[in-house]
């Protein structure tokens, strides 16, 4: 994690890309999420002050929209699609396998901060269900064996049992 001063400076830079209006709060928060992999607490206060809106309202937004997270996500973000098509093609088996390999469930991050797991509702690639993305890269027709291989490629797998 970066130092607070550095993050604050980057936050200000980000905020200034938009007009100073409350309606851009979601856009600013999302840019922040993409930059820091989370919404740091300090940044939330900075944005609230900058836009002139109450902190509680921004906090409400940060907890309402699932694209935003207040806790840092892992370096490697695994998203398992649990859309209906993937669900009936056994996405739950993949989610269970993630728990076996990395000991995390949906919404959780490994202790060392390396991996995060999220379930998402439909990535729009239903033909190759079950689908996962690893840091936005798509993998289709995933089996437990394939999952192990993919994760080993990112440095977490058979050795983390």
């Amino acid at each position, binding site marked *: 994690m970066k130092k607070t001063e550095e993050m604050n400076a980057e936050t200000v830079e980000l905020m200034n890309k938009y007009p100073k209006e409350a309606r851009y709060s979601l856009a600013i*928060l999302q840019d922040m999420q993409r930059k820091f992999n989370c919404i740091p607490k300090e940044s939330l206060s900075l944005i609230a002050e900058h836009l002139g809106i109450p902190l509680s309202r921004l906090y409400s937004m940060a907890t309402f929209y699932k694209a935003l997270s207040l806790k840092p996500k892992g370096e490697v973000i695994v998203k398992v699609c649990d859309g209906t098509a993937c669900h009936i093609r056994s996405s739950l088996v993949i989610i269970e396998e993630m728990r076996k390999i990395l000991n995390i469930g949906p919404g959780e991050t490994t202790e060392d901060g390396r991996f995060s797991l999220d379930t998402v*509702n439909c990535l729009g690639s*239903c*033909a*190759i269900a079950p689908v996962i993305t690893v840091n936005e890269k798509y993998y289709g027709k995933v089996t437990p064996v394939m999952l192990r291989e993919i994760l080993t490629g990112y440095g977490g797998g058979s050795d983390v049992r």
Partner: protein
Amino acid sequence: MSGNGGKTVLVCCGTGCIANGSLEILSALRERAAKAEGIDVKPLIKSTGCNGFCENGPIVKIVPDQISYYRVKRSDADEIFDRTLLGGEAVDRLLHVDPATGKRVRSQMENEFYSRQTKLALRNIGEVDPADIDDYIARDGYKAFAKALLHMKPGDVIAEIEKSGLRGRGGAGFPTGRKWKQCASYDSFPKYVVCNGDEGDPGAFMDRSIMEGDPNTIIEGMLICAYATGSSSGFIYIRDEYALAVKNFTCAIEKARERGFLGGNILGSGFDFDIQVVRGGGAFVCGESTALMASIEGRVGEPRAKYIRSVEKGLWGKPTVLNNVETWANVPLIIMNGADWFRTIGTERSPGTKVFSLVGKIRNTGLVEVPMGITIRELVSNIGGGVPGNRNFKAVQTGGPSGGCIPESMLDLEVDFDTLTEAGSMMGSGGMIVMDDRTCMVDVARYYIGFLSEESCGKCVPCREGLRRMGEILNDICAGKGREGDMEMLEKICETVSEASLCGLGKSAPNPVMSTLKHFRDEYLSHINGKRCPAGVCRELTSYFIDPEACVGCGLCRKKCPADAITGSLKSIHSIDTQKCIKCGNCMDVCRLKAVKVR
């Protein structure tokens, strides 16, 4: 053109094909072309949006030869270039095989998946490079808008849309012309035009493919509406997960501005209009129109009561027209070809076509556009190719979390807005999820309630607390803890949730539960009284075993078992160790003789 014989290669770069490596094919083709002499690379090899036949991607097409290749690999690129582009002959192994005749067919139109389709909203997708506005213009792009702006009065434009009978394709089926007319009638400015690109139904990706593959048709539709209703400001709200759609749409807006189709004094007429892209934040409820507008305003996506319609007071309390992506895609065609033409397609109450995403347990998964009035049987069996493997059709789930299940007995229903609603489901945005006998309908209901429990905004009591308790009951039932009276309690809660909820999400949330209770009641009873899941899905209620009468000892199940739970030597009866079994169901899926059964 210099030395490429007027040929173009179209490589499908919709998200599905990209996942299967189409970008690598694109660059491999471009590399090969760069090495060839006397060839102008750029016009030759283009990337397009989704072709719809996603089960068989990556798809590569050559025009004007009308050759379509499927399941292309990077290693095929050189051969395609040398043999087809330069040599003029087809690479047989990459052609589609007609399942009826067993013969290979060259063109897309000979492919039975496409031949029954009528492409209106999807007319350009797979044929144009979405980043190239000239491709769009070459196919009559922006002509409808010019016609409206320069030769029609705003009132005439609205009248034409009304006459066409176009209804909102997002699911509600509200008459589009009436919506525009109402908005135009209010003397309150500024007015807004919004595109709902927050396609959230799991299993639905129609809107994604239009936004990615032909953003200009949406821009043109919105321009026509803006002119007709007196708006100068538009928004497109794109779901956060659709990164490629955001990219392609943003690019299309920039190009449209450069050409003078967006901005000030468009085509010298004094009419101004521009569109802003707004990214969603990962909330299904933001597909609801008032929640979407709250989100654009920078607030949480909580819906409001719609006693005052958005056409009167929408964004920032001003008259707003909000329409779905597919609805916008139809508008330019109606203005270009006329309402009477549009009415010749589809049914009396639902003119035009509908784009469906056919997914799940079906051979040909992908996107199809067909005239309204087609039967579900035609969609599933003929275009979709039926259920794969040796499994049996069980149901089609239409309308996503707001819809219901259509069992086999209702397959001859004609698809349009009203017929399906009258049958207890709804057409919804077009997601069609095919389910076979290995799908547990109680689990499907449980899945949707779980989904909605997280996605509900949580503001009103019936939806929030109703979903909570329905989820508890369904989870119990699937875990073997169902009680007597559970089905009645579910029905009781469903009634209140559907009548008393604040918004459409809550009001339609009970649909999957109600329709599965209606058509698959015996499955519920089996779970509650028999403590058994006939489909072999609910873990606590499933115990797999191999029928010694049916097993021939082929060993396929043993090979596919991820838990090493099956023992048996070749040609002798196999058996499952229930202690090791993780109940993934692979064995049941692969056994051709259906020897693996559920107790």
